[in-house]
């Protein structure tokens, strides 16, 4: 029986059959019968990357931990396990994820398919850099293993490959050693765009850094921001209370948004008010503190279903990256257009990426900005305009957040798209693995 499924932006919504599997045997029988499908984990991409009109395979029941060497930090698990479950197991033993995005409610398979990045990209790259081996179920359910040394084309196509090379089964990767589960955080106010860019340069020695940016302020305060940088705290840096449980895990969130807010809840005014409030909440210019990992890495997770605040129509998240030389110019132009249009963005996150150049993985050296837009009349043509600006500056859009980008923009902005498609024709020749997104972008 089909059910209504949508991802984090609640757009698009589709009705489709969804099957699950908890062993490879079970998946094999699904793959033999289904000739067109896509895998889906926790549905935390924003658009249609893990949606298909034919069939969706949920990986959530394929979630067993297979290996955890708490001396070397090598960890292997099935693709349906969540980052939350991984953290619960590894933190008490003094280990952390090598790369994590802004939510722990994603699956390991999703982390590979999106080749996720985090606040430490400039220092430690994206998730794929830390992966030792991946196994996938190809056509007809046969298991294939790949790594940077074996079937490298399949490995690099799978990382960031949006699930199009097969159904990811297991991932073996290297964890990061930590002394405590706390973070030494530093918060610095930036009065405008030039200032925040200076700060990113100044603080690039920190392992973790990002900034919250007010993208609606004009005039002198254009691009005003708060940078948050951090390091894993050492045992000696904790206070006596924190020292009592240095490797503590986050407790479950208590606040949940139980239903969709009405559509007007997040209009321009409320966004302006929020940004102003957020900015002036930090009284002094620089603020240092030792905080648990949960609010540093996952501030929004404490509000379960926060995406419901965007109402029934849902929202689109727009994330792009611009090459370093073009970043300032490009950000000025894009932020100005957004401000003039008044379509408002509730949350805007700015990050500096380090070098990366893999097939269709998103990051490149330069600045990335992520913004939310509630779906409203006129939004999509406006985003097409922004796409062109991004393209003109040599940048590209993050597929994991994308719900509407046109095919030509994708092909013109990812120089290795052709190479990726060639690898797909080898491992997914009949386009058995395809999604609404892959069809829209002419990848399958």
């Amino acid at each position, binding site marked *: *029986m089909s059910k209504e499924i949508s991802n984090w932006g609640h757009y698009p919504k589709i009705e489709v059959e969804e099957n*699950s599997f908890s*062993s490879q*045997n079970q998946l094999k029988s699904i793959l033999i019968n289904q000739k067109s499908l896509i895998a889906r984990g926790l549905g935390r991409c924003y658009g249609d990357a893990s949606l298909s009109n034919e069939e969706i395979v949920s990986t959530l*029941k394929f979630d*067993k*931990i*297979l290996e*955890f060497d708490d001396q070397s930090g090598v960890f292997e698990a099935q693709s349906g396990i969540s980052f939350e479950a991984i953290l*619960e197991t590894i933190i008490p033993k003094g280990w952390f994820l090598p790369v994590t995005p802004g939510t722990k409610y994603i699956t390991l398979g999703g982390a590979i398919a999106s080749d996720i990045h985090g606040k430490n990209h400039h220092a430690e790259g994206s998730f794929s850099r830390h992966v030792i081996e991946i196994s996938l179920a190809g056509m007809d359910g046969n298991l294939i293993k790949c790594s940077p040394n074996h079937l490298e084309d399949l490995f690099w196509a799978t990382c960031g490959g949006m699930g199009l090379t097969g159904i990811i089964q297991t991932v073996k990767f290297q964890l990061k050693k930590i002394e405590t589960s706390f973070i030494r955080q530093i918060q610095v106010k930036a009065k405008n765009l030039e200032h925040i860019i200076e700060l990113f340069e100044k603080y690039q020695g920190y392992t973790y850094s990002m900034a919250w940016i007010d993208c609606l302020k004009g005039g002198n305060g254009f691009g005003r921001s708060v940078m948050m940088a951090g390091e894993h705290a050492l045992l000696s840096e904790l206070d006596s209370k924190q020292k009592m449980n240095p490797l503590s895990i986050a407790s479950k969130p208590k606040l949940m948004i139980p239903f969709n807010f009405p559509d007007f809840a997040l209009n321009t005014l409320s966004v302006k008010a929020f940004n102003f409030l957020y900015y002036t909440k930090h009284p002094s210019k620089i603020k240092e503190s030792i905080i648990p990992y949960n609010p540093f890495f996952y501030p929004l997770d404490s509000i379960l279903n926060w995406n419901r605040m965007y109402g029934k129509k849902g929202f689109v998240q727009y994330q792009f990256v611009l090459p370093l030389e073009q970043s300032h110019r490009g950000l000025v132009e894009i932020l100005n257009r957004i401000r003039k249009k008044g379509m408002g963005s509730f949350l805007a996150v700015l990050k500096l990426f380090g070098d990366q150049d893999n097939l269709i993985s998103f990051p490149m050296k330069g600045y990335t900005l992520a913004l939310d837009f509630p779906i409203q009349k006129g939004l999509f043509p406006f985003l097409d305009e922004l796409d062109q600006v991004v393209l003109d500056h040599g940048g590209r859009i993050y597929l994991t957040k994308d719900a509407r980008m046109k095919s030509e923009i994708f092909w013109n902005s990812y120089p290795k798209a052709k190479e990726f498609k060639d690898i797909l024709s080898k491992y997914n020749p009949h386009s058995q693995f395809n999604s609404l997104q892959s069809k829209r972008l002419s990848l399958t």
Partner: protein
Amino acid sequence: MKNVLILGAGSDVGQSLARLFASKSYSIHIAGRDMELLESFKKDLEIRYSVAVNFSYFDADDFSNHDSFLKNLNQTPDIAIYVIGYMGQKKPMDTDWEDTLRIVSANYLGAVSIFNRLAKAMKNRKSGILIGISSVAGERGRQSNYLYGSAKAGFSTYLSGLRNALISHGVRVITVKPGFINTSMTENLKLPPLLTAQPDEVALAIYKSIQSGKDILYVRFFWRTIMWIIRNIPEKIFKKLSL
């Protein structure tokens, strides 16, 4: 050390039970038919919870092997949970005989076969808990699933008789009657969200019922009231309904 045997550990509720008991430091024996799943599940439980885990093949239908299955356990478990169930593929009237036998075996005969043996062993030892996952479907036969329902009805009556037989021997028998649960078995049904429990929720309710001394557990609790109403509808009226 406390240990628990889970028959049907590959199922959604079975997995939730195994994880919950492991988190409470029970050593676990997981049994089912999908050996690949059981093998990876053993690793998962050991890594997450640092408890001893064993696994072996168990088929509810295969009565002649139930003796050797128990022998290979090395010890009679402190707690044994039967969480094997099968609803059939089609409406009861359209179900062929082979599938009918599967329904009756999985939900009733298989349980009777293994629980008879475990009951004797626990009685001799003068301690233990037997837990059977039956269903509210067993409380009244209805047109949409009377094969599954009658098998579960048989199971519920068997469990209450066993409870009666074992009470003076220090062995408890708990009947669990879930309403709707969100699992692979009900994947293709449209279930009303408020009435439908999650596997983890069912596992927790079962665990708590051990502490609270319950004999019959409804999950979610209001099914007790719903079934009271269903049971009391006069047959003259019920036989015309389309439940």
